[in-house]
């Protein structure tokens, strides 16, 4: 009892400690955040807010956000216990985001790309008209500018509050991906915990390359729905990344600490660049050569994260 109370107290946002959802270990929040929300004990990858994801993926200062102000309309006047319109306002205030998707352009280790990241903090990362529209706009822009596309999925599925309108976003996003196919532009889907329902059954599964973070729940139907339907216990590891890899559903599993390097490498192949160079730290810009001494110090963190992660694992 005391332990539960302790756990609950320390789970509070901003608390000093956080309990691992997977192994139950108590993690020192500061260190946990430094590991980009990966459990130091069991390696469990926690859901990462969209802005944090962009911060660890894009080159510093390279992200330019687009279509920031798109907002959902409550076309259904949906009302469960709180009217949808009100729920949107509350969630916007709470998260500081307009909806569950952040889109724009950036460079990853110097390679320009279009990027879209789902935000689980916004109504479970559910896909409604804003998510659908932003993905469509992103793909159309990328097709026009010949930019490879990276989409980070993190979602419970379609947003019920938008009814069949949200269902049709599955069609909208898949249709938009055909625009990339017509131009020979490559798309990469990164499925993170959790990716289920209408998101898995649309854009996240039909990009050219399918990557998953370790241990992520990925599937069409939720495990509880399946268990109720078949009235059986589900096999261990069912619908996790490793299971999907085993069943031939995804290309690769990439740990968060290596994701940036790995994406750079794939982007290099996708855009006719040197994939070997993608693993190296960014070259120092020519203009900065004058201050080469300081630049060298600044460039270091670029190369570091991998080493750091390794050191901690060993320790």
């Amino acid at each position: 009892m005391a332990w539960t109370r302790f756990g609950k107290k320390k789970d509070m946002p901003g608390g000093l400690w956080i309990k691992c959802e997977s192994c139950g270990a108590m993690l020192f929040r500061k260190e946990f955040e430094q590991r980009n929300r990966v459990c130091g004990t069991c390696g469990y990858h926690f859901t990462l807010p969209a802005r944090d994801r962009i911060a660890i993926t894009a080159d510093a200062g390279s992200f330019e956000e687009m279509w920031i102000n798109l907002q959902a309309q409550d076309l259904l006047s949906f009302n469960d216990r709180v009217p949808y319109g009100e729920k949107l306002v509350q969630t916007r205030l709470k998260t500081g985001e307009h909806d569950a998707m952040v889109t724009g352009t950036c460079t990853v280790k110097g390679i320009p790309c279009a990027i879209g990241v789902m935000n689980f903090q916004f109504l479970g990362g559910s896909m409604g008209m804003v998510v659908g529209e932003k993905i469509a706009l992103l793909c159309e822009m990328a097709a026009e500018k010949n930019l490879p596309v990276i989409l980070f999925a993190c979602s419970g599925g379609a947003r019920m509050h938008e009814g069949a309108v949200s269902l049709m976003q599955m069609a909208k996003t898949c249709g938009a991906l055909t625009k990339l196919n017509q131009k020979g532009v490559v798309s990469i889907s990164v499925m993170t915990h959790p990716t289920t329902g209408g998101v898995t059954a649309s854009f996240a599964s039909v990009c050219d390359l399918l990557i998953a973070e370790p241990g992520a729940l990925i599937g069409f139907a939720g495990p509880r729905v399946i268990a109720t339907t078949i009235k059986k216990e589900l096999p261990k590891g069912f619908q996790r990344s490793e299971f999907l890899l085993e069943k031939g559903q995804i290309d690769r599993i990439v740990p968060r600490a290596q994701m940036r390097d790995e994406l750079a490498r794939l982007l290099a192949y996708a855009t006719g660049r040197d994939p070997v160079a993608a693993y190296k730290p960014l070259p120092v810009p020519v203009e900065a050569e004058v201050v080469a001494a300081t630049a060298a110090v600044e460039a270091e963190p670029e190369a570091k994260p991998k080493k750091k992660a390794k050191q901690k694992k060993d320790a």
Partner: protein
Amino acid sequence: MTEPSAKPGVQDGLAFERPLNDLQTKIAELRKLNSGSHLELAGEIELLEDRLRRQTAEVYAQLSPWERVNVARHADRPLTSDYVQMMLDDFVELHGDRVFGEDRAIVTGLACMDGVRFLLVGHRKGKTVKDRLACNFGCAHPEGYRKAMQKMRLAEKMKLPIVTFINTPGAYPGIGAEERGQASAIARNILEIFELKVPVICIVIGEGGSGGALGIGVGDRVGMLENSYYSVISPEGCAAILWKSGDKAPEAADALKLTSKDLLRLGLVDKVIEEPLGGAHRDAKGAVERVKQQILEWVRELAAVPVPELLAQRYRKFRSMGTPISG
């Protein structure tokens, strides 16, 4: 066709059907008595029939969304197999996805109707208990969606238009389905239909259950039978999640705006195909005929559209569904 179907109505929890069914039974009984030629009885029958018509029209004009969901699931409602039987002059069923197996929850085949050839793809629910089990109650596995795609590619090669009949509670949520990529099979279909160089016509004839429906639901024209529904989640599922109680399905059905009129108003379907008075389950022939005429009209209309324009229109149509505001 006014054969009474009182029992299924009651058993399906279609309470509003009871007075209509009672009237129907009464008319049928009077008819039996009237095998001779009692003039008073004939007048009485006429009176009752008139009352039945008016009452049916009244009841059906005021159905709640949840009641419509129940009509869409009615045991006597024509299924894809009924359309195949009643509407087509020829049908060559084609089986298998060429990869894993044959999914009976989706039927595919070459069809001919009034001289018009096309590929028919449709969810299959089954009539008898045995059939229903074999068809998994219309809940397809990935094989079903892959079979549909494989045949749609064939139709493209043969330059045949594609007609899909949507009638599923949803794609099957099971271990095998997940192992073999249910999500991926559906997503692949949705994407690839955008690329098909032949016209695609979709008709929701009963249940338009979420991704399982959309997996064969991207079309140049999408029609919905009046009493069918199309939803992102079943009312029961939505109620369980948002209301924390499956009993609130009627409330959820209301909130989801899943009726044909709602979908039309939201710009998600092109047309509501009116059903005969009192629903397709009271007059299967009438319903099938209306669907047939609609298909023929659309096939003719779309045949005139050049392929690049057809594909551009198809994209624009779904691209414009649910446009956010710029706040």
